[in-house]
């Protein structure tokens, strides 16, 4: 642990944003390279990321990120557009593999398994680390088939009755069952935006993931649908680990236990959400969350 701290330049002592000028802060930032302020480690991690770098061709998008994602916790990733938060999120289930020019270095483990191990099959990985996107993307199939598709292709159900149970429990956990139970054969695309997003969450749940990644899951939804998703995220935390990228700082403050602030591809600060939103340690975090840039 000590070695990692030294290698990654983690700043043990919090920087002092109040006493430092902007120039001082910039100097500290440069001096510590990609050093992150705050607690990057947790006692009970589901995923551990060490010295993660991401390149798109020659251009480096993520710089030496070290971060633990705690079990049954919601961690939110915030930062201005282009800061790398979505790129980092997509590293967690190797979604970046689909981009030819994208190269990821460093180590990301789920429990003790290196997810970038050459022999690892990404299909079960993406079932274990599910993803929900910004825009709801139900399959052009019935509500039932949207949920049943994953368990079928992953061979998770023994028979039709078992599959029915998986569909019902997934929709129930996603808070959608009562609204759709009488029209399971209707197209998923006919649901409202908020319902479609919960359908996508139910679809992710149906393949028994351990981690759910959410990339701005509410940005296309109205406030009521957003509230329902946020409520759902809080309920899902009991059984799953959730990493969410959001542009809404209020949403990050409401739904997550830990918050990570990214800036120009670097993880600037990570800590308890309460601390980040009341007393951030790094001036860049402070300036971003108080609306001074970004």
């Amino acid at each position: 642990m000590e070695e990692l701290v030294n290698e990654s330049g983690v700043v043990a002592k919090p920087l002092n944003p109040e006493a430092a000028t902007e120039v001082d802060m910039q100097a500290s930032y440069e001096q510590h390279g990609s050093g992150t302020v705050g607690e990057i480690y947790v006692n009970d991690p589901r995923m551990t990321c060490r010295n993660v770098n991401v390149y798109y061709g020659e251009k480096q998008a993520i710089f030496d990120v070290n971060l633990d994602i705690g079990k049954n916790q919601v961690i939110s990733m915030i930062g201005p557009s282009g800061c790398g938060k979505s790129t980092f999120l997509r590293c967690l289930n190797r979604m970046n593999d689909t981009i030819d020019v994208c190269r990821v270095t460093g180590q990301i483990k789920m429990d003790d398994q290196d997810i970038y191990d050459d022999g690892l099959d990404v299909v079960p990985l993406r079932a274990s680390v599910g993803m929900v996107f910004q825009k709801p993307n139900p399959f052009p199939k019935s509500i039932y088939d949207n949920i049943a598709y994953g368990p079928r292709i992953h061979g998770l159900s023994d028979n039709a009755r078992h599959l029915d149970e998986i569909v019902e429990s997934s929709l129930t956990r996603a808070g959608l069952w009562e609204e759709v139970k009488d029209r399971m054969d209707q197209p998923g695309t006919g649901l409202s935006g908020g319902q479609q997003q919960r359908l996508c969450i139910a679809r992710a749940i149906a393949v028994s993931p351990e981690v759910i990644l959410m990339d701005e899951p509410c940005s296309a939804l109205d406030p009521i649908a957003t509230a329902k998703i946020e409520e759902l995220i809080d309920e899902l935390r009991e059984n799953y680990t959730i990493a969410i990228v959001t542009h809404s700082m209020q949403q990050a403050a409401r739904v997550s236990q830990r918050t990570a602030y990214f800036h120009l591809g670097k993880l600037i600060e990570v800590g308890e959400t309460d601390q980040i939103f009341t007393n951030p340690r790094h001036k860049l975090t402070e300036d971003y969350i108080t609306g001074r840039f970004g």
Partner: protein
Amino acid sequence: MNEMTSGHTVKAFTEELDSINQFVIELGELGLDQLRRAVQTLRDEDTKEAGLVIDRDRELNEIDIRADEEIIRLIAKRQPVAKDLRDILTVQKVITDLERVGDEARKIANLTIHFYDNGKPPPSNEILRDIYDMATFVDDMLNKSLQAFVKVDLKIALDVIEHEKRLFDEFRGSLRRLSTFLMEDSRSVGHVVDIVLALRALERIGGHAKNIGGHVIFLITGKDVRHENLSAIYSEVADLT
């Protein structure tokens, strides 16, 4: 404008934060002035002026209410976080303390009317002396606490908090001195009780100044030091001093 509020992308937010800071400055000046005028009415035996001090307390109450309304509106509208949130909470707490400074000043003005408008012999200057000494002391504390807020200055805030122990010692010293008046002449008991109440009002003003110092430390550090002793406060802010 205090030095914490600058540079939001939404400029109106910065202006709104500035405007609630103005409430503190306005109320601080009024509170300090009320304290000075109330004590001066005792020196001058001026019951008419004391009446004006009492009437003027309404102005402080109105600013308190207006500031609260503005703060509620600002929180609802902007949903502030981090130092913006601390800034707003600090303003609200400082306003509450300053309004109470006004209440204590009113009590002293009431005493002037009680002493010089009831047809009975007023107290001697000798027995009143402790009020003037203590008033000078708390005037300095209050003044410094307002400077600490306006300049967002940790050192001045700590200085104000340090003063509180001396204030308490002054208060205890005055009580001892007043007790000698009682022992020498039991007829002075009425005056002594009234003066103890005035000293208590001044001691409370010093307490409010100390609170303001604590609020400024919260504003700067995010740490709530209101119920901590001085050495604990110093260790809390050690990395900033």
